[in-house]
C-alpha cells in the first residue's frame, strides 16, 4: 500500500519586513544592501556581504516604539557648508556631503589617541600607545574653523580623545574654542586629572565663568561595583571618580555622568547611577550609552545587545517610584531611534526624593509631532522643546537652562489659586536634571538611513565633519589615525561572538578580520 503524500502547505515567514536600506559588511566595510525586520516586537537589521556572508543584529528592543517614533522626525537643517561631494554614495563620502540631511548639533574634536588608561572597552582604541597622534594648535584651530564655517554660531564642541586632559595644550584648545562663535565646550574625560590636579580643575572653572560661554564636564562613570570598573576600565577608579566630582563641585563645574552600559556587566547599576548623580551637587545629568561595538570591547552577542528601549526598561525597573514607560521621549533632530531624553524636576533630601519627569507635566508629543500636526498651540514651546530634545542639549549651558524656562509656558495653567505655575517652574532650574540614552551604531547595526541624519560629527584636521557612527564603523577612524600618526592602522572588526574564529587582535587590543588568501583576492 502506498500512502498518499501529505499536501505541501505554504508557510508564513516569522518576521515582518519593514525597511530596505544600506549598511556595511562588518568585516570588510564594503557597503551592502540591508533589510530591517520585526520579530516578537523587536527590530533587527540583516545584511549579506558577497565575501563574508550574512550578519544580523538587534537594533531596537521595542518595535512598536520604533514605528511610532517616525512622526517625531524633525525636518533637518541645511548646514552653511558641506565639506565633500557626493561621489561613491553613503557612507563613503563623509563628510558632510550635500546628501546629508542634518547640520551638526554637536562637533567632536579628538585631540589625541593617548590615554592614561587601557580600558578593555574603548571605541577609540586608545591607551598607553607610543605610535598615535596629538593634534597641534594649528590643527585644532582649523578644526574649530571648519565647524564654525558649517554652523555659523555653533552650540557645542566636545573635546575628546584618547584622554584629552593629558594633552598638554588642552586648556589652549578650550581658549581657541571660546575665542570663536562657539557657545559651549564639553570636556569628555575619565576624571583622573580632575581628581588629582586641582589647579587644572580650577582653570576649567575659570573658563566656565567666561561671559556667554560655558565649559562642562562629560565624566566617564560606569557604576559602583569593583567588577564594573575592572571589566570596563581595567582598574578600580572609584575614589578617583568621587574626588573628581568633588573638585568639579568646588570649581563650579557642571558634570554629566556618562555610563557605558554592557549586558552582564553593569546593566544593574543604572538606577543607582541616576540617584548618585541627583545627590551630588556637581552632577546635573546622566548619559547612558550601550557599549559601542566599534574599536576595543569585550565579546558580545549582536542578537542580544542593549538598545535604547532596553536601557529605558532597566531604568524603569530599577527606580519604579520615579520612572514609568513613556517618561523618555525620542530626540527629533537626529533619527528618533538614535537617542531618547527625559528631564526631571527633583526635590527633597537624599533618600526621600520627589522626582517629576517633565514629559508627565506636558504632552511633549503634541508639540514634537512633525508628520501629523501642522497647527501648533504655541510655536515657542515647540522651539524650546526642540532645543531640549537635541544632541546639543547639555546641562550647564545657557541655552538648555533658558529653554527649560521657556518650556514651562507649556504648563498652560491659569492663575486660579494664586499660583502661577509656569512662573514658579521658571525658578526651578537648579532642580532640573537630564537623562540621555544614546545607542551609537557599530559595524553590525549601521543603517545609512540613520547615518544620513546624524547630528553628532567628528571633526577631522583636514576640515571634514564625519558622522560619529560612520567615523567609528566605516573605517574613517583608522584612516585618520594612519594619516596623522604615519603608522598603518588595521581595519577594525567588531568582537562579535559569531565572528570569533575569523578575527585576530590588533596592536591596540581591538580585532581585525584575518585575511585568508581567497578573501584577500576577492575583496581587493
Amino acid at each position: 500500500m502506498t500512502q498518499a503524500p501529505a499536501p505541501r502547505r505554504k508557510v508564513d515567514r516569522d518576521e515582518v519586513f519593514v525597511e530596505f536600506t544600506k549598511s556595511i559588511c562588518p568585516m570588510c566595510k564594503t557597503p551592502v544592501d540591508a533589510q530591517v525586520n520585526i520579530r516578537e516586537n523587536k527590530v533587527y537589521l540583516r545584511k549579506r556581504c558577497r565575501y563574508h556572508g550574512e550578519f544580523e543584529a538587534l537594533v531596537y528592543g521595542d518595535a512598536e516604539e520604533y514605528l511610532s517614533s517616525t512622526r517625531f522626525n524633525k525636518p533637518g537643517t541645511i548646514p552653511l557648508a558641506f565639506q565633500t561631494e557626493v561621489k561613491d554614495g553613503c557612507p563613503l563620502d563623509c563628510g558632510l556631503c550635500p546628501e546629508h540631511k542634518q547640520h551638526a548639533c554637536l562637533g567632536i574634536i579628538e585631540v589625541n589617541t593617548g590615554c592614561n588608561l587601557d580600558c578593555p572597552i574603548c571605541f577609540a582604541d586608545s591607551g598607553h600607545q607610543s605610535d598615535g597622534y596629538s593634534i597641534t594648535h594649528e590643527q585644532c584651530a582649523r578644526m574649530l574653523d571648519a565647524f564654525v564655517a558649517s554652523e555659523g554660531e555653533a552650540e557645542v564642541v566636545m573635546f575628546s580623545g584618547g584622554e584629552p586632559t593629558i594633552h598638554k595644550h588642552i586648556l589652549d584648545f578650550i581658549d581657541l574654542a571660546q575665542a570663536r562663535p562657539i557657545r559651549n565646550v564639553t570636556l569628555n574625560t575619565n576624571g583622573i586629572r580632575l581628581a588629582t590636579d586641582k589647579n587644572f580643575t580650577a582653570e576649567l572653572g575659570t573658563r566656565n565663568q567666561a561671559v556667554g560661554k560655558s565649559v562642562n564636564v562629560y565624566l566617564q562613570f560606569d557604576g559602583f561595583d569593583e567588577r564594573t570598573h575592572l571589566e570596563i576600565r581595567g582598574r578600580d577608579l572609584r575614589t578617583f571618580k568621587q574626588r573628581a566630582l568633588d573638585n568639579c563641585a568646588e570649581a563650579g563645574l557642571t558634570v554629566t555622568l556618562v555610563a557605558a552600559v554592557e549586558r552582564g556587566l553593569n546593566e544593574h547599576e543604572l538606577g543607582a547611577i541616576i540617584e548618585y548623580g541627583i545627590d551630588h551637587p556637581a552632577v546635573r545629568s546622566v548619559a547612558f550609552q550601550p557599549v559601542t561595538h566599534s574599536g576595543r570591547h569585550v565579546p558580545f552577542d549582536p542578537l542580544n545587545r542593549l538598545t535604547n528601549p532596553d536601557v529605558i526598561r532597566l531604568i524603569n525597573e530599577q527606580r519604579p517610584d520615579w520612572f514609568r514607560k513613556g517618561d523618555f521621549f525620542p530626540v527629533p533632530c537626529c533619527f528618533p531611534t538614535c537617542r531618547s531624553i527625559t528631564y526631571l524636576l527633583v526635590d527633597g533630601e537624599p533618600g526621600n526624593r520627589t522626582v517629576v519627569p517633565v514629559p508627565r507635566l506636558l504632552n511633549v508629543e503634541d508639540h514634537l509631532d512633525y508628520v501629523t500636526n501642522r497647527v501648533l498651540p504655541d510655536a515657542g514651546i515647540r522651539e524650546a522643546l526642540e532645543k531640549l530634545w537635541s544632541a546639543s542639549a547639555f546641562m550647564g549651558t545657557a541655552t538648555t537652562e533658558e529653554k527649560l524656562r521657556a518650556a514651562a509656558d507649556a504648563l498652560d495653567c491659569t492663575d486660579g489659586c494664586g499660583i502661577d505655575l509656569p512662573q514658579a517652574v521658571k525658578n526651578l532650574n537648579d532642580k532640573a536634571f537630564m537623562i540621555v540614552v544614546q545607542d551609537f551604531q557599530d559595524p553590525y547595526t549601521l543603517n545609512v538611513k540613520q547615518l544620513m541624519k546624524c547630528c553628532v560629527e567628528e571633526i577631522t584636521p583636514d576640515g571634514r565633519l564625519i558622522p560619529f557612527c560612520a567615523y567609528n564603523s566605516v573605517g574613517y577612524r583608522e584612516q585618520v589615525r594612519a594619516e596623522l600618526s604615519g603608522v598603518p592602522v588595521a581595519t577594525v572588526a567588531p568582537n562579535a561572538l559569531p565572528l570569533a574564529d575569523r578575527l585576530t587582535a590588533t596592536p591596540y587590543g581591538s580585532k581585525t578580520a584575518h585575511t585568508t588568501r581567497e578573501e584577500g583576492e576577492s575583496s581587493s
Partner: protein
Amino acid sequence: MTRPPSGEELKVCCAAAYSSDVVALLLGASYHPGGTALTRRLADGLALTPGARVLDVASGRGTTALLLADAYGSDVDGVDYAPANTALAQGAAQAAGLTDRARFTTGDAEHLPHRDGVFDAVVCECALCTFPDKARAAAEFARVLKPGGRLGITDVTADTDRLPPELSGLGARIACIADARPLRQYTQILAAAGLSTLRTERHDDAMLRMIDQIEARLNLLRITAAARLTEAGVDLTAAPAVLAAARTAVADGVLGYALLIAERNPRLA
C-alpha cells in the same frame, strides 16, 4: 459606609472644581486625555469631507477645532463656557492663519447658540462628563446636527456605584470623575436624544496617563507652592492614596476613558 453623594452635591462639586480652576491649575485648560493623537482618531470616525461644518463643544483653547480646520479642511465653530478660552482660541486661530475656517464664541452647551440642523458633525472632548444636565446637552447636539450628521465624543467613563470612597473627595474634584458615567449610560443618554451609537472604543491608557499627569503636577505644586495648594483646599497628604485608588479603579474597569461615534437619527424631527 460612606453615603453616596446626591446628584445635587455632585453637580456642586464638579462645578466648584471647574470654577475654582483646580482642574485647570493641575492639567491646563486645554488638557484632555489622549492628546491630539486621540483627537485624530475621533476625527477619522466622523467621515469628514473638506468644507464640512463642524461644531466643537467646550472648545477650550481651540486645539481640537484648529486641528480639524487644518488637517481635515473643516469649517469649524467652537463654543466654550469661558470667555477667556474664547479669546485664547481666537488668538490661536489668528496665529495659525485659520480665522476663515475656525470661529469661536462663548456659550453654554445646554443652550447652544446655533440654529437647528446646520452641522455635519459635532465633537465634544472630555466635557460631557462635566455637564450637569447631560440629557439636555445631548438634545442640543442632536438639534444642531443635520440628519445623518455625526457626533464624536471622547470622555471619562466611571461606574459611579463601584467607585472607591477615595475617589469621591479630592480625586473626584480634580479629575471631575464624580459625574462621569459608564460608557453604556452615555449611549443611552444619546439614544434618548435621537443619536444612535455607531462605534465605541476604550482608551483607558489615556486615563492612566492623565492620573500620572495629575500626580506630576501635584508634586510640582508641592515643590513650588505647598502653602498655596493647601489654601486652595487640595489635601496633599491624601493624594497618594487617591491616585493609587484611581489607578486601581482603571485596572478594575471602574474608571476609564472612551471614544464614541454616534449618528443623528435621519428621521428625527
